[in-house]
């Protein structure tokens, strides 16, 4: 018998330790902050509705100042003692990585035999002896006498990252090496096996490296935020949004700061979920000023990417949504071509209708009466300057809209194709197929209504535009659930099970089976959440595998692999409202 089921939700025992009891009606006040490329948004959610919202320019270089501006605007007149939780989705980690503002890291890896890892990591690693095989057996221990002196700390390097091949099957070598590094003076050592319990040595190593590289920046940011909140008499716990749409308490996030990368799209997805999760198979489009974020939904849940996120050209174990950003937004610049037009990816600034100097996609929408704001006359004039010989202004606007829709539709088609060609490893999965047949489009964001209605017409799909999409990202952050994922692997011939994320290795209980494994892992997840003062009463299985092992012609045992998480998503849905800024 073999199980290879995915995403089977089951309800575990309700958690005893309950600090925040969210009962689905939303009786506590929540503060959400989203730092985007252009704007920093803040929302205060109270009793299931947006109580206050604010939009301030993002202050590049000093992200905190923009956060405080938005924070002060939203807190104006509110009773801050009622705030139960603050969630921040910020670009701090993404910026540190893209701008190279990272600290030097000592990276030590135990590769054992296999692929040559040269060029696989952002820095050349120090190769340490010792390795573990695929069954979790220590094939060789680290011979520290061979590395005498080399593990000594280089001046100015205070953090280290350690990663071993198959350390998720047995982390002992990693622990020993981390211990040695701490002895030689490293303040903090990040372990690959603690950042992800899943197989993929290269991705875990990169996660550990990036975690160490942004540690200092992230820690400083966390301290500043805490200080600033304290100044405003907010004592509620601070949580950080992760790329997979879950939150982590600040102190836990400090152990895995790399998870806080690329949270903008995640916040957007959660915002859409909060404003009414699309049912059936849906595609959401968050139309901003410069970009449109596209995500897939299945029965109210956003789909996660099958592989971790890329940071630069390095694959990591950071989980994220199956999303794509295309360079089409309301402020997209329009380039006149000999025939037709090109829209985006550059931003032209505000629409001519709002006093801008160059025509934008929004102006084309206004001309076509698919959007209605500002001075329509100005839009008509601006688009008029782009007409080809004998082309009416309306025809030009339509051609511009079509060019923008081409880009978005192509991106959707590519995403659908990518989803359908993902390799599968069982006969039943090949037969059942994994085509994603979208049933509707959901549009949010300032430029959404006109553009997405036109897209829906073209693709023959109904369109839903939930209200309140203007600050969807901050709403998503405010309402995000805390999440944590972990794996359990048991090889019954060994007599032990291992939860690599914690290093917990315990003797197997009597009558161990898949159900027992689920109970153990579920309890561990709840325990972890309790320790972090997080609420959460639902765990779900992400994937599971069951194999009988045979030696010669005899059954020798079973291999059980299980991966579960505290279900991500939002705490409850809210009703959005439209406010002019």
């Amino acid at each position, binding site marked *: 018998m073999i199980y290879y089921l995915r995403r089977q939700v089951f309800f575990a025992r309700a958690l005893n330790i309950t600090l925040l009891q969210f009962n689905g009606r939303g009786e506590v006040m929540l503060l959400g902050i989203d730092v985007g490329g252009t704007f920093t948004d803040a929302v205060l959610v109270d009793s299931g509705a947006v109580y206050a919202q604010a939009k301030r320019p993002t202050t590049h270089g000093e992200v905190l100042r923009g956060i405080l501006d938005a924070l002060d605007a939203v807190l104006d007149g509110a009773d801050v003692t009622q705030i139960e939780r603050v969630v921040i989705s910020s670009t701090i980690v993404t910026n540190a990585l893209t701008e190279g503002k990272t600290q030097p890291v000592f990276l030590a890896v135990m590769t054992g035999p*296999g*692929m040559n890892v040269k060029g696989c990591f952002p820095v050349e690693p120090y190769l340490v002896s010792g390795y573990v095989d695929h069954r979790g057996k220590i094939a060789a221990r680290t011979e520290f006498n061979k590395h005498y002196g080399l593990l000594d700390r280089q001046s100015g390097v205070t953090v280290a990252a350690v990663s071993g091949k198959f350390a998720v099957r047995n982390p002992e070598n990693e622990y020993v090496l981390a211990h040695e590094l701490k002895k030689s003076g490293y303040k903090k050592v990040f372990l690959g096996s603690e950042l992800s319990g899943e197989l*993929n040595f*290269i*991705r875990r190593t990169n996660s550990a490296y990036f975690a160490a590289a942004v540690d200092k920046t992230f820690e400083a940011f966390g301290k500043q935020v805490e200080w600033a909140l304290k100044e405003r008499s907010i004592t509620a716990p601070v949580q950080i949004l992760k790329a997979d749409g879950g939150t982590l308490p600040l102190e836990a996030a400090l152990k895995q700061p790399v998870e806080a990368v690329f949270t903008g799209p995640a916040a957007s997805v959660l915002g859409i979920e909060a404003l009414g999760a699309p049912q059936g198979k849906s595609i959401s489009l968050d139309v901003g000023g410069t970009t449109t974020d596209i995500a897939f939904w299945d029965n109210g849940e956003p789909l996660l990417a099958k592989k971790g996120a890329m940071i630069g050209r390095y694959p990591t174990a950071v989980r994220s949504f199956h999303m794509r950003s295309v360079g089409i937004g309301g402020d997209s610049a329009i380039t006149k071509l000999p025939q037709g037009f090109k829209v985006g990816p550059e931003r032209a600034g505000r629409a001519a209708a709002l006093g801008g100097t160059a025509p934008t996609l929004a102006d084309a929408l206004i001309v076509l009466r698919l959007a209605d704001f500002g001075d329509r006359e100005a839009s008509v004039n601006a688009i008029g300057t782009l007409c080809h010989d004998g082309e009416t202004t309306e025809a030009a606007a339509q051609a511009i809209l079509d060019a923008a829709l081409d880009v978005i539709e192509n991106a959707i088609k590519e995403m659908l194709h990518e989803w359908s060609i993902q390799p599968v490893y069982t006969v039943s999965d*090949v037969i059942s197929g994994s085509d994603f047949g979208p049933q509707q489009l959901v549009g949010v964001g300032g430029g959404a209504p006109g553009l997405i209605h036109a897209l829906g017409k073209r693709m023959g799909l109904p369109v839903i535009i939930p209200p309140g999409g203007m600050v969807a990202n901050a709403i998503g952050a405010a309402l995000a659930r805390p999440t944590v994922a972990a794996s359990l692997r048991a090889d019954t011939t060994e007599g032990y099970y291992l939860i690599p994320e914690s290093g917990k290795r315990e003797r197997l209980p009597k009558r161990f089976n898949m159900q027992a494994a689920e109970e153990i892992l579920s309890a561990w997840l709840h325990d972890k959440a309790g320790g972090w003062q997080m609420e959460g009463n639902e765990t779900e299985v992400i994937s599971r595998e069951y194999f*009988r092992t*045979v030696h010669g012609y005899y059954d020798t045992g079973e291999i059980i692999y299980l991966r579960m998480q505290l279900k991500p998503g939002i705490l409850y849905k809210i009703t959005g409202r439209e406010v002019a800024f």
Partner: protein
Amino acid sequence: MKQANLGLIFFPAFDWMISPGHPERQERLLYTRDQLTEEGLFDRPEIREYRLRMAEVNDLQRPHVGVPSIAKLITPAHLASAGGCLTAADAVMSGEVKRAFALVRPPGHHAMRIVHGIRGFCTINIEAVMVEYLRSRYGIKKIAVVDTDVHHGDGSQDVFYHDPNVLYISFHQDGRTLYPGTGFPNEAGSPAAWGYNLNLPLLPGSGDKEIHRLFDGLIKPVLDDFEPELIINSAGQDNHFSDPLASMSVTAHGYAALADKLKADIAVLEGGYSIEAALPYVNTGIILAMAEMDYSKVIEPDIRALRTPDPRCMTRVEQLIDQVGTIWRSRHEVGKMLLDKCGNKWQRKKGIYYDEEGIREEQLETAHYCTKCSGWMSIDTNARGTRYGDQSAYVVCLHRDTCADCQKAAYDDALRAKQSCAYKYILLQHPDTGVVETI
């Protein structure tokens, strides 16, 4: 899209087995999956992983005739693993990848043209399905199949025995010491294809040095001489020193270095049942080599268990280089002589045992020659103890270029067989379309 060095079709069929406890069971590629995933190979820009597509029954019927029918003998897993090979072929032919590896199961090189059931873990010869697909879809003519499985690929030999455009080379542990007991140099092809079936039986214990000497001294020069449009590798991995079903001494590095030298356009997994100690490392090595990456660091943890081969192993290699080299070099003269001797008809009798199901089959195969075309074939088959009881069939196989006169002769022959009432089934195979007619 930039061309990747290697297209990888990985299909471990985690829900398919022959029977519980059988070497062909669900977790055969589990540890390989773990190793490949842990190494991060699926993320490499040199490698593109593909989702396989299912083959159609007609794809399987280009090289095969099933009794009572292919559809009644297979499981969906066979359509998947054969489909994996077709996916590999498409990836290479479209230019998306330089070469491809169908790391799929179930395997196939013991499956012969006529299929009554499972033999040597195989029902469908997935390489043969791919070869015929390459011909029908892409018009490829000359193909070399190099079989590096420890067992003689008697199924592949059977399917390609009359075809001078498929050069089949197999090295394997001597048939006197291992299943299926065939694969000697004198089985060099039918008169029309003499010298295009090269068997290289090695002594038990042969290792890296022996197979590399054999490759450099014989296989490589023969391939260069044949000038195939495509090279296919039946990449069995049971020559490994840890394999429980065989007794050879090849290492993962030895296999990887061979893959590097062979530079096959498409490799297809065959056997290999040391699922923990060999497959994870051999597959990593082959993938790295085919993707033109460094495989020098692929070393098994238990490499100390490796024994030095007996000097007689190398002596056998030298003998084979000499003996089989002569067969190759004299193939035109000998082939002509054999053809002259047999006239317009050549026959062979075969007793075939299906170890998996205990089926005993008796075949009389007749090649009908023609001066204008490749002629046609007829096969008289009787099988005892199949899952559908005792079977008898008369099968007529056309070739792709069979001329109108021969086609008429073949149909007439099939009708005569029908009128004789001596057979349960009269079947006629069209290799180009995979249509099998019931007469």
